[in-house]
């Protein structure tokens, strides 16, 4: 399924990045960070004339020959990014949406941990497990 899942905070700093293949981590970090620009554009921060999107799901951000990158932004300005392999055509738009829903649920569970300080990186084992479930590793 997904080859990379990332959670980006309010201030565009990475809170959590997980790649299926850790040896390619740097490449994915790069891809995730470049996609923030497109998210900003879609959320039209400081630009009220653009059409506003009411759905939290932002859809396909961009596609290359190898990868497709999808985005999602919550009401609290947290961004989720998922990278899929382009060769993987079994996943429809709705499936991706469901993945994001699961990710959002996992994230809100992680935030509800009273020991988690908002704005910090996420170091939760149970969050790890749910991410791996989403990525289909376990």
């Amino acid at each position: 399924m997904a080859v990379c899942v990332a959670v980006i905070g309010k201030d565009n700093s990475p809170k959590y990045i997980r790649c299926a293949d850790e040896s390619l981590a740097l490449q994915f970090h790069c891809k995730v960070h470049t996609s923030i620009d497109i998210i900003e554009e879609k959320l039209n921060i400081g630009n009220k004339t653009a059409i506003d999107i009411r759905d939290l799901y932002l859809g396909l951000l961009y596609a290359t020959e190898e990868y497709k990158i999808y985005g999602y932004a919550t009401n609290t300005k947290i961004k989720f990014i998922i990278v899929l392999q382009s060769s993987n055509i079994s996943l429809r738009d709705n499936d991706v949406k469901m993945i994001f829903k699961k990710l959002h649920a996992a994230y809100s569970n992680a935030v509800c941990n009273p020991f988690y300080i908002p704005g910090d990186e996420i170091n939760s084992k149970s969050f790890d497990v749910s991410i791996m479930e989403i990525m289909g590793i376990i």
Partner: protein
Amino acid sequence: MRQQVIDTKMNSHTAGEADECLFEYLHTEMVNYTLSKASNKKEKEEELSRLEWMGFSVGYRIIERLTRDCSRFKDELDMIKFICTDFWSSLYHKQIDNLRTNHHGVYMLQDNSFRLLNKVGTNCNKQYLQESPRLLAFTCGLLRGSLANLGIISTVNAEISTLPSCKFHVQVQQM
């Protein structure tokens, strides 16, 4: 996927009385505990800020969960409206009765029968009027925390004129 916390939004109408009481008991104990640490009046006011801080962190976390299924908010007023309706009814089982704004960052939220106050006394009873503002500190923090996570930095204070009703004043800090 849904662990620990039950979605309060779904259960607000079906919830039994027992779990409603739990929050009220816990809240009263929290107020008692924070105030018991202070001896004189000035210290007591400082201790209330601790209570306010507890509210802040609860509000900050709970808003992530409550806004999960709603569409993106258009502007500030949209967010305040969400607080008045969904947020308030999932926590206090009723909506805010009156919302006023000057459209320049000041909002007044009025609840005519606030849940944490309506057991304290009624209209003609002024016995506990002096003591009741301490019951609002947590809720002020709750409001401030939830707005903070939505991206609105604000100061919130509350006032009580007659007993079961109270007003929350939200002052948004302009960037």
